[in-house]
């Protein structure tokens, strides 16, 4: 009997040791694969939401935030920023919802004192949220800021860093936060000191930063052109500007880029909306009519499948549609999504 007990103990010990030494397999969360679709929502309705698209079944799960958390998102979803642990849903109606990236369960929010929040970046255990601030009587925003929250799951704003003009996209580079300010500047914030250290003037209206082959770029546009400003990684001065003759590019600055350095942008032309393909490497327009249609509002590129995703707002009269386009510029399929699909995140 004692031998039997000893054998059992040894077996159990062996089992425990074997489990302890094997790499731990944590199953992926439901929202850590597929495509997260940002639906901005309609002004005055606050019906922004996230849809989840399954690339295998080509089906979309509606209203992810509401179905998981049993309450509406209740905001206009401007941006979605995802980290391994948490995903941040930035509403331009003045709040940031924090959910767990794996399952979208709400863990907190920043919903005091934000006014017109645009984007967010996480650095040094803090949240930096760009916000246009209130409008004045002339529809200008003279009190724009970057709000700093000292808890990555949300809470109150600790302090605000004034910005030179309306802040849009943010990037965390080295130990600096870069802020794209719409009156043609980059504001550089030193993390820790948390104040604008310097500004860099750029051409066009700056929107978002992106990284390609180790270099940082800023996307900007004006009525006639699109500008890609390559930045010095230390000084953040513009070292090179690529200009593309694309007029009427989408007013919200939406674009997407793939691993090959091809940028896709939307141009609102007289009778149609056109997706134009640009090359970052050649600095030229590759295809000025890659795909056309109407009511285009958002773009995303899935490098795994080399598929372009286009969001259509359908005239804002109802919900939108997402189309998938292959590398040859042909429609693969489409799927009904939420109101005003404006962006895509590929976990």
């Amino acid at each position: 009997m004692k031998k039997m007990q000893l054998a059992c103990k040894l077996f159990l010990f062996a089992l425990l040791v074997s489990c302890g030494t094997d790499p731990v397999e944590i199953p992926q969360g439901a929202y850590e694969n597929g495509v997260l679709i940002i639906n901005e929502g309609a002004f005055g309705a606050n019906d922004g939401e996230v849809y989840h698209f399954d690339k295998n079944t080509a089906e979309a799960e509606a209203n992810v935030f509401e179905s998981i958390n049993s309450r509406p998102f209740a905001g206009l979803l401007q941006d979605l920023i995802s980290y391994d642990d948490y995903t941040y849903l930035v509403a331009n109606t003045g709040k940031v919802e924090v959910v767990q990236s794996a399952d979208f369960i709400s863990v907190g929010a920043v919903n005091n004192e934000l006014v017109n929040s645009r984007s967010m970046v996480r650095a040094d255990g803090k949240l930096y949220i760009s916000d246009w601030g209130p409008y004045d009587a002339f529809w200008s925003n003279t009190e724009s800021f970057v709000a700093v929250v000292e808890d990555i799951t949300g809470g109150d704003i600790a302090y605000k860093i004034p910005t030179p003009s309306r802040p849009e996209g943010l990037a965390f580079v080295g130990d600096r936060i870069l802020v794209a300010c719409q009156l043609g500047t980059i504001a550089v914030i030193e993390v820790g000191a948390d104040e604008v250290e310097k500004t860099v003037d750029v051409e066009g209206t700056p929107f978002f930063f992106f990284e390609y082959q180790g270099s940082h770029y800023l996307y900007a546009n004006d009525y006639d052109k699109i500008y890609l400003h390559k930045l010095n990684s230390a000084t953040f001065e513009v070292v090179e500007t690529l200009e593309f003759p694309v007029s009427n590019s989408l007013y919200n600055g939406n674009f997407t880029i793939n691993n090959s350095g091809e940028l896709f942008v939307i141009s609102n032309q007289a009778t149609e909306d056109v997706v134009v393909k640009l090359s970052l490497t050649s600095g030229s327009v590759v295809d000025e009519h890659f795909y056309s249609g109407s009511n285009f509002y958002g773009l995303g590129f899935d490098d795994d499948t080399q598929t372009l995703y286009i969001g259509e707002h359908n005239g804002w009269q109802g919900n939108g549609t997402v189309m998938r386009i292959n590398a040859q510029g042909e429609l693969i399929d489409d799927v009904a999504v939420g109101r005003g699909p404006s962006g895509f995140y590929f976990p």
Partner: protein
Amino acid sequence: MSLFACLVFFIAGWQSELDSSRAFRQDTLVLSQVEVHAAALRKYSFGQYVRTLDADRLDQLSGYSLGEVLQQETGLFLRQYGAGMLASLSMRGTSAGHNALFWNGLPVNSPSLGQADYSIFPLGGFDAVNIHYGSSGALYGTDAIGGSVHLSSDLEFNAGNELKIGTLLGSFGRWHQQVSFRQGAEKFAFRTNVYRNFTANNFTYKDWASPGTPEKRQEHARVSQIGLVQDFSIKISPKQSLKANLWINSNDRQIQPLLGSAVSDVQEDKSVRSVIDYTYNGEKFTWTAKTGISSDVMVFNTDRNQTRLFLLGTALDYSFSQKWQTLAGIRYSHIKGQLATYDSQEQRLELYQATNFKPIQNLGISMQLRQLIHEGEAAPFTPSLGVEWAFFNSALWNWQLISNLSRSFKIPTLNDRFWVPGGNLNLMPEKSLSKEIGLTNKTKIAAFSIENRFTYFHMDVDDWILWLPRGSYWQAENVRSVVNQGLEYFFKGVFKQGSNRWGMNVDYSLNSAVNQSGDQGNSLSQGKQLPYVPKHKIRTQGSLQNGPYKLYIQQQWTSERYVTTDNQTLLSPYSLWDTGLTYAFELKGKLKGNLGFHTNNIFNVDYQVVRLRSMPGRNFQFNLNVVL
């Protein structure tokens, strides 16, 4: 006389009857002022329902807005964007701009928006509310596609002096005060009425937009109204009279923020409205002339929008015989708008004619024709034909078959045409073709008295105007086609048992409003119910009256509403129960009045009429009206 007969004139359908079943005996009735107005609305409306809201009930609700009254007291649905906030009416599944609103015959839909905010029409501004269900463009002109609402003032000769003081106190800082004095002599009558309404609207609500959905107290939703009404009537001679009405109203409110938004918008609405009516009653004819002005200023934060409407019209109602009556009129309107992005003006001229033919005692046929000229362009010619046939009539039972066929239209609003950017001068009027058929029944057996009214309607609305994004701005375009059809059912029952009088009223509406066009290629919306058009709304009221006491309980149930045109998001149905007790008193014939205690939303239901717009929970009200 023949000159008058040749004139065409005003107030389409102002001359009618108390209700359809009485249409064949109108000459023998003696009517009060309110009834005269209601009768006028009904006279050329064979085949349609014109309903008068109960005056005693309105007295209990003084301090309410027209929007609250229609939502609570009828089967009509209003999109309420919060308590005391924008309230727009949907009749028979149409949009807010497809219903005409009149105050003493003056059109008061905003010329720039083409619709009315029913929350800024407090009951203090008028005495009676009549609702015309169904398409009635031939009678009333533009906007009356789904129906129309008529507000009127009541001022009688020989009514003596009367001082009336009223107040209503309620939850969430609600306080209404009203003082009116009137004198009704043999040849002259006047009334002055001043009122003030205030609501803090600091009710508690569940904040669905925040983690944990905490309960919060509503902030930034205060509403304040103040107004003056002045009515005059002069009997120039036994046949001639002159009536003048003035209404000044100021509405100041903080706009209740949408859940999840932190905006602090404020809106101020000021309006001045005035009408003068001249009436000549001949032996066989009534000649009326009308002029009026409606001036509205709306300041939203710092944006100022002002519109003015001037109206001039005349009409002749001639009775050839008991079988034939005809009404003809002409109406001229001049509209001026000074909006945030444009200044503009326009002119409209309308000719209309209506004829009643009663070939036999129990059959009435009315036909109306209207042609509106808008800035030199002819709007769609608008005919209408209605029939009422009392096919069974006895001492106990009355059964009628009713039917109506009519076209209606809506002229593009000033904003649709001139807003910068996006206004579109090439817009066509929206137009509709409506058909309806119904059955009415009145029964009186012993102590029971029952009325039923059942109507089926079908309506095609085309060239519906929508604002669609076109590049960097939005533009107004004629894009939508909709088929609306449904049922309306009204029940009124009274049972007398000794000194007890039991009553029951039911309003039910079924509205299917299906988008046929898909809104400019949006196939997701094609074949779908329009947003914020509930398929069902039912309102039931039961009451028990014993002498001066009256106890009532009422319920309204509103079915789910789709939020978007593709019906992918919907709002839950809700059911609200209200109850109250009223008492009418009289002291030695010198002082009389009434008081009431009311509880609304008894079960404290957390509901939203429009998504993310919080509404108050259980609330209490006490009202007192004293007449000296």
